[in-house]
């Protein structure tokens, strides 16, 4: 379905000197809650892959402490040479950023003038770390008091690298992210949360209003954060003005190879930009996004913006795929995976969409607490995937059905013992540890709590957390508090233990039964639990007559001895029969008394061997 809903309103054709923000932005940011707002004009040279930018940054000291400095992030400088913090880390193992850098990138600031201070500030800058110009300290000539605002006139040139990590160009495709000098976030206590860009680090910033005019060659289509309020073609160039109220980042994609499809989803306009010939994938993404948007709105509060843009980068720029920005996500994965029963396209779309809440609206410090956005997003992804494709959300083929949850469990199990989940992104040794702990282990922890303590209570906890802290910057203690309030003290303690690197291993220690005086049978099941994460455990005991009794142990302590009474001798025992404790990395030793042989496995293996024999043997 195509919906043409662009209203062409007053258009700033020239670089904005001080244009009024569109009424939309004003209305949606009543009470001027924005702390860091940007009005920028960006002119893309598609041949040199440079962006000439100029505009105004408005910043308010929202902390309680007077400030003698600003911290700015110039993340494109991470691609400046081989000595930057990012490039020093080398090629990562098991995470994005595997391509080598063909062309360097940089962010050069020509002007940074504070109107209120009547001072040019860029001359005095220093950097947070040697050989790395991504983290910039800007000294101020005088203190800026709490509540006081600064208006900064800025001019800069952004040179895009060949696409790497999440930003850059490939041919004429441009994914333009981290492209302007951006204020770090000033915490309420007056400390700047600033950091050099690290291999596994994402971002952190204050909310504000963005008004960005993007100037590209006329044939280019542009997808950006926010919604367009004006679109003018003139003299071979095209200028599109985007307004994005109450967001904390602005990215855009521009390419003359894009095709576009739009669709309305519950009052939100979905726009899919995709390479020619990939309409099938784009349709799938739009369909999944439409359904997931409704789900997330119900769970975590409504999507508060009027547009969501889905950018599907071309294959040469796959590195730019699978990334989230406010109101803009990039997707990916090939149809090749669909042929073998994997739902990668769906999972990536759902994951990036979930980030609109756990990153977009709940703007956590992604550098210091990467598990707060990636872990919760992965949890939300699992929830939706399982709801849409119960029991086979990850894979469905050859008679086997695998949920994404089970796949995440494996990654979480492999990451056990690799240390704390709760640590800064710069402290992960490699991509496997980062992905395994931050995504898989955190999501599996939350799924375990939901399965053990009840899906509804967990939904309530995260629903409250997401609603209470929307448009703010929650911390781990806010999440723990929500879990404590809605799920309970024990769940909150288990969550804390798990993010501190704790594990859980429950297994069967022994079982016995004997006739009692009354003609029935009595016995005991003895369980063992190891690891710092304490969780209640269920046990199913099957008697020789086939009746099943469910026993429960609170999991406190290392050993639990559970009494049992039945109509016949115990025949078999199964610990955690509903696989609630997904965080347990070892399922061995959980069962006893069942059939010793595995006829189907023998048969399947023999059949496969026969098939193989047709190739290898006569």
């Amino acid at each position: 379905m195509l919906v043409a809903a662009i209203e062409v309103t007053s258009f700033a054709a020239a670089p904005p000197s001080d244009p009024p923000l569109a009424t939309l932005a004003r209305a949606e940011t009543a009470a001027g809650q924005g702390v860091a707002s940007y009005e920028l004009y960006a002119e893309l040279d598609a041949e040199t892959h440079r962006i000439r930018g100029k505009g105004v940054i408005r910043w308010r000291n929202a902390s309680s402490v007077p400030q003698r400095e600003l911290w700015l992030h110039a993340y494109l400088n991470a691609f400046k040479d081989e000595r930057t913090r990012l490039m020093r880390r080398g090629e990562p193992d098991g995470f994005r950023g595997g391509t080598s850098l063909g062309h360097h990138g940089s962010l050069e600031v020509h002007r940074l003038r504070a109107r209120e201070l009547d001072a040019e500030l860029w001359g005095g800058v220093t950097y947070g770390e040697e050989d790395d110009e991504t983290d910039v300290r800007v000294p101020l000539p005088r203190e800026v008091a709490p509540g006081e605002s600064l208006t900064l006139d800025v001019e800069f040139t952004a040179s895009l690298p060949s696409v790497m990590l999440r930003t850059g160009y490939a041919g004429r495709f441009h994914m333009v992210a981290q492209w302007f000098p951006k204020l770090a976030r000033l915490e309420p206590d007056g400390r700047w949360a600033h950091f050099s860009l690290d291999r596994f680090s994402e971002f952190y910033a204050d909310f504000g209003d963005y008004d960005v005019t993007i100037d590209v060659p006329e044939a280019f289509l542009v997808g950006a954060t926010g919604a367009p309020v004006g679109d003018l073609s003139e003299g071979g160039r095209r200028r599109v003005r985007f307004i994005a109220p109450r967001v904390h980042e602005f990215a855009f994609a521009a390419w003359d190879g894009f095709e576009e499809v739009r669709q309305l989803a519950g009052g939100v306009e979905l726009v899919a930009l995709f390479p020619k010939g990939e309409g099938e994938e784009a349709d799938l993404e739009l369909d999944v996004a439409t359904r997931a948007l409704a789900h997330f709105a119900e769970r975590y509060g409504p999507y508060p913006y009027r547009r969501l843009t889905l950018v599907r980068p071309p294959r040469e720029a796959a590195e730019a795929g699978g990334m989230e920005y406010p109101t803009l996500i990039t997707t990916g994965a090939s149809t090749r995976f669909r042929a073998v029963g994997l739902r990668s396209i769906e999972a990536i779309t759902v994951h990036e969409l979930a980030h609109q809440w756990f990153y977009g609206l709940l703007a956590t410090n992604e550098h210091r607490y990467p598990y707060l956005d990636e872990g919760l997003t992965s949890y939300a992804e699992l929830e939706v995937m399982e709801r849409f494709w119960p029991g086979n959300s990850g894979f469905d083929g050859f008679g086997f059905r695998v949920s994404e949850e089970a796949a995440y469990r494996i990654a979480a199990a492999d990451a056990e013992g690799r240390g704390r989940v709760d640590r800064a992104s710069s402290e992960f040794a490699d991509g496997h540890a980062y992905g395994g702990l931050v995504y898989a282990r955190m999501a599996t922890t939350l799924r375990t709590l939901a399965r053990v303590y009840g899906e509804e209570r967990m939904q309530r906890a995260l629903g409250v957390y997401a609603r209470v802290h929307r448009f703010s910057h929650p911390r781990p203690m806010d999440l723990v508090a929500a879990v404590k309030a809605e799920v309970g003290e024990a769940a909150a303690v288990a969550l804390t233990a798990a993010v501190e690197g704790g594990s859980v291993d429950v297994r069967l220690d022994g079982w016995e039964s004997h006739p009692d005086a009354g003609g029935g049978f009595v016995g005991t099941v003895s369980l063992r639990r190891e690891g710092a994460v304490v969780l209640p455990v269920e046990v199913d005991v099957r008697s020789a007559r086939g009746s099943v009794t469910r026993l429960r142990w609170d999991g406190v302590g290392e050993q639990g001895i559970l009494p049992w009474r039945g109509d016949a001798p115990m025949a078999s025992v199964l610990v955690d029969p509903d696989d609630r404790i997904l965080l347990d990395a070892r399922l061995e030793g959980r069962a006893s008394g069942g059939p010793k042989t595995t006829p189907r496995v023998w048969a399947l293996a023999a059949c496969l061997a026969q098939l193989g024999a047709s190739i290898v043997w006569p």
Partner: protein
Amino acid sequence: MVVGLAVVYRALASGLLASIPAVAVSRVLGGHPLGDAVLWEPGGVWLLEVVRRAPSHAPYGAYPLAAAVFVSLFAASLPLALIVASYGSDAPSTWTRACQVALGVAPRFTLLAALVITAQTLSFAFTTALVGFASRPFVSVSDERWPFVVGAALGLGFAFGIGILGDLVRASVVWRNEGVWASLVWAQRQARQGYRALFVAAAGRALLGAFGLTVCAKLVLALLPERPVAAAFVSVGCGSIPVALRSSWFGAVARELGAKAVVASLDCEQPD
């Protein structure tokens, strides 16, 4: 008789091979009350756990396994050699003689089997990768499956050709009692002269075999969840299809080359 022997060998060897995953899987499952049915449950928590943990529970180590593969190649060459020998112009008349012939060529057959499989794998992988790489500038992501399909089809074609050549070499080893290299020279000359008839004979049987095995696979998959033992028996029974077709293929080779071989040798004797 010889075909029956080959089928029995396959059944025994595949059973032995099957024991490796079966033992490993049952060790991970422990005594799960549902047995291996838990592997087919939606969600696949135990299935993935078994995939993850089974390798560390394999009943044999890597070296014994490699040795077993080698031994199976050697052992498999015996019935194959018997099949080939039975179509020769002086086919062994007694079992003792037949076994002598089979044992005599078994080392060369083992070497050949390893060479043929390696060459087939390499050519398949190389062709698939090459086509995929060469097509990159011309196709978009959504068309990626086509380069793969085309590459795989080409690769299969090459592997098929290598298989035919390998069998001609085997025929030469048994019928002419020559070494592998001399047989290869002979085989490629035969293949060039009679490629059309040989290809038709091989492709027809390959198609027939693929059809038969597909039907078998469907039958086996349908039987597997409820009647695993029956499925195993059916699969062993189905093993007779490729063996019988392979046997009849060597018959066709013998018929085709019986005449050609003479012509070829005459050609060689006439200087030009």
